[in-house]
């Protein structure tokens, strides 16, 4: 260091010390964890949309009736005891003691029933629960019942759904809000309190420890067990630029990055003070529009599968070998209990001749195929790889660049391509949004669904209905295998690869829970 640098450093250090003396001592005494989230929190209501950032906010403020551990096993969370009738159609749940919302009111069975009713109008599993004829009854302040008209093997899986739209419990007065209107008052019974007065959208979200939260006695595992909060305050600092967030972590200004942009992994790998945590895998998804030619024919959809080189897609996005599955044939992700390679054999390696043949059999006439290409998305390079591969197979590709908001609006259109319609868009789903035939959106959508892409395969619908009603684990798994085999034939969507998002921390301990891919802040401590 030169003399000049030393002088400047001393001067600024002195100014900093003076500044610290001027600031409040209380604020600095509290243990604060600063986290750079992947996205900015906009919607507070976790039962309003499926944005991951809103889900993560939900886990801070609200609690769930049941929760899944790191292996996907269901454990009670707000529930103390529960019973199930022999035929699996009558369920009774009793809440544990000392549950209370942060407005001081106790959590009651009526709050739970109202929350389930609102959730079941929006969530896929909730809708399936209602389709099985579910009715709810409040027995007393702490007990409620669910009665089913049909067999439904996923009651606990639904109540413990970890992602997409988890069933968070809110007070009855808020849960009675129309599901198409977001709740803005944050009254939960979770481990943290949301500081709305300190919320600056686009910049900062603040949570403080909920002093009235009573964690379960069991050790924490995944989303289950005791949610013991060891820090006083958590701040989500939204840093839109990946370079800046990596620099801020190295500089000690933040303690954690929720998901490191792949380009910056080599930089952080070289910093001994930074700990990189590889989470559960996410799945890249290509969604063809099954309503319009050429993808209203399954042969044309199969042609896409024949051009997919997963490694090429993942490399283009920036995921090195350490952070991806080299080849994953399972639509349920390769690390899930349902993982299987059934039906994948014809597509293991790209084969452009087979793609051309399938395309010819589909009756493709060379019409334009519009790919909606969001340039402001972390996975946008995957669109370029897809366009190039499809062109090589004989598709007449029209890659239309736009922002994600435009993709989100355009993909809802069912019109022909020349009237603003589309043929393909790319997206990705987290582990919990791909790992079963019920949670994977494009695998779970029945004929007549309203999901962009509008896949429809009646054979798949029948298999899924059998799977939903099945209570036996082995039979259930065998049905999941059949579902995937069928899905590789009818192709409701195409996988473009499996990658493992990386969380970076500095100076934090007990961060293992985050391996589930959700940045839960309970049990985390600061050195």
């Amino acid at each position, binding site marked *: 260091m030169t003399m000049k640098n030393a002088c400047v450093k001393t001067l600024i*250090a002195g100014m900093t010390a003076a500044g610290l003396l001027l600031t409040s001592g209380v604020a600095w005494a509290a243990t604060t964890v600063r986290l750079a989230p992947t996205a900015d929190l906009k919607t507070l209501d976790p039962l309003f949309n499926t*944005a991951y950032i809103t889900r993560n906010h939900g886990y801070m403020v609200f609690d769930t009736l049941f929760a899944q551990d790191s292996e996907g096993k269901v454990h009670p969370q707000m529930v103390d005891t529960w019973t199930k009738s022999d035929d699996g159609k009558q369920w009774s749940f009793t809440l544990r003691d000392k549950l209370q919302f942060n407005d001081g009111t106790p959590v009651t069975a009526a709050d739970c029933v109202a929350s389930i009713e609102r959730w079941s109008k929006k969530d896929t599993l909730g809708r399936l629960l209602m389709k099985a004829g579910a009715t709810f009854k409040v027995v007393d302040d702490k007990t409620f019942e669910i009665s089913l008209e049909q067999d439904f093997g996923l009651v606990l899986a639904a109540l413990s759904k970890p992602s997409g739209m988890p069933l968070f419990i809110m007070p009855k007065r808020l849960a009675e809000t129309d599901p198409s209107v977001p709740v803005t008052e944050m009254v939960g019974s979770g481990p943290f309190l949301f500081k709305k007065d300190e919320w600056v959208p686009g910049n900062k979200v603040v949570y403080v420890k909920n002093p009235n939260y009573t964690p379960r006695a069991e050790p924490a595992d995944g989303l289950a067990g005791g949610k013991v909060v060891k820090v006083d305050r958590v701040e989500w600092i939204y840093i839109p630029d990946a370079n800046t967030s990596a*620099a801020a972590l190295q500089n000690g*200004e933040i303690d954690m990055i929720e998901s490191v942009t792949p380009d910056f992994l080599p930089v952080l790998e070289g910093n001994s003070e930074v700990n990189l945590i590889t989470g559960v895998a996410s799945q890249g998804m290509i969604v063809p529009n099954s309503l319009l030619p050429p993808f209203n024919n399954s042969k044309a959809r199969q042609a896409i599968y024949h051009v997919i080189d997963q490694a090429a897609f993942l490399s283009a996005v920036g995921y090195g070998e350490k952070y991806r599955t080299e080849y994953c044939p399972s639509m349920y992700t390769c690390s899930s209990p349902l993982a299987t390679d059934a039906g994948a054999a014809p597509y293991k390696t790209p084969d452009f001749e087979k793609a051309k043949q399938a395309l010819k059999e589909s009756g493709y006439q060379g019409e334009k195929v519009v790919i909606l290409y969001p340039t402001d998305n972390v996975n946008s390079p995957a669109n370029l790889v897809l366009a190039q591969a499809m062109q090589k197979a004989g598709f007449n590709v029209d890659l239309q660049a736009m922002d994600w908001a435009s993709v989100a609006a355009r993909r809802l259109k069912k019109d022909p391509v020349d009237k603003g319609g589309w043929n393909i868009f790319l997206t990705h789903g987290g582990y919990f949004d791909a790992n079963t035939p019920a949670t994977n959106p494009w695998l779970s959508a029945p004929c007549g669904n309203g999901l962009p892409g509008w896949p429809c395969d009646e054979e798949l619908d029948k298999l899924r209905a059998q799977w939903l009603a099945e209570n036996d684990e082995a039979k259930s798994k065998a049905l999941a295998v059949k579902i995937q085999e069928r899905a590789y034939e009818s192709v409701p969507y195409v996988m473009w690869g499996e990658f493992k998002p990386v969380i970076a921390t500095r100076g934090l301990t007990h961060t293992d829970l985050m391996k589930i891919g959700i940045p839960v802040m309970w049990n985390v401590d600061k050195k």
Partner: protein
Amino acid sequence: MPYVLRRLVATIPVMVVVAVFVFLLAHMSQGDPAAVLAGDNATVEDVEKIRASMGLDKPLIEQFLVWGGNVLQGDLGISTSTNLPVLTLIHQRMGPTLSIALFTILLAVLLAVPLGTVAAWRAGSLTDRLIMLGSVLAFSVPVFLIGYGLAYVFSVKMNLLPVQGYKPMSGGIVEYFRHLLLPCISLGLVYMALLTRMTRATVLEALGEDYIRTARAKGLGSGLVIWHALKNAANPIVTTIGVGIAMLIGGVVVTETVFAIPGLGRLTVDAVLRHDYPVIQGVLLIASAVYVLINLLVDLSYRLFDPRMDR
């Protein structure tokens, strides 16, 4: 009617045109705020329900009249993405934006006017060439590159200053300035370069005027000659400063993004990406009003430097 009042009244039709233009521009874009809000796995029906709850299913003219009526009552509406009042969002962002704008301009003026004047006084000398070389470089290098460079050296390597964020003055004056230093320097260099070149050109022109030659012939000292020239060259410099302030208040997106500063620029870009119409409309309307006001102040300031304008 006094001049100031006439100018203020003249801003009303300007603001009406701006309001109509801003509203149409926001609504003519391809995206759909309801689709963004609904999330990735939303169905068409989900999105339609949300659109209806936002009032976006109503005719455009009806939406404009509702918005215009609310604006006249001082209500800029509610953000479709955060459900917070637009005025609250703008208020949250005003502090960082004003701080950056004022300190950047202050930094630029304090350095650029003397540098530009010296360059004009020593026109053709090595000093002049060095100053011009520096200003060309500062003007040519992209702001984000300067920002990354400064952050790398002063934050990551030397650990002297924060990489990102903004601290309000209430959190301590030193922290406030520490967070402003790098963004203001990286942004100020561009404005400094612009002002230096403008000052040099106008002072050089003034130095060639007859009255300067007369003043020199009468034996006036160099310092006073320069002062006379600078005063006469002030109007174009003040105009550049005024435009600079207006542009900075309108938001400096790149700098705000690089240093993660929650200013009006990022609020606007974020709103555009999410098609948050009330925020887009509110911010642009206020930015336009500020622009008009600053232009008015610049026009009024001309009279301070040039008494002939009063005639």
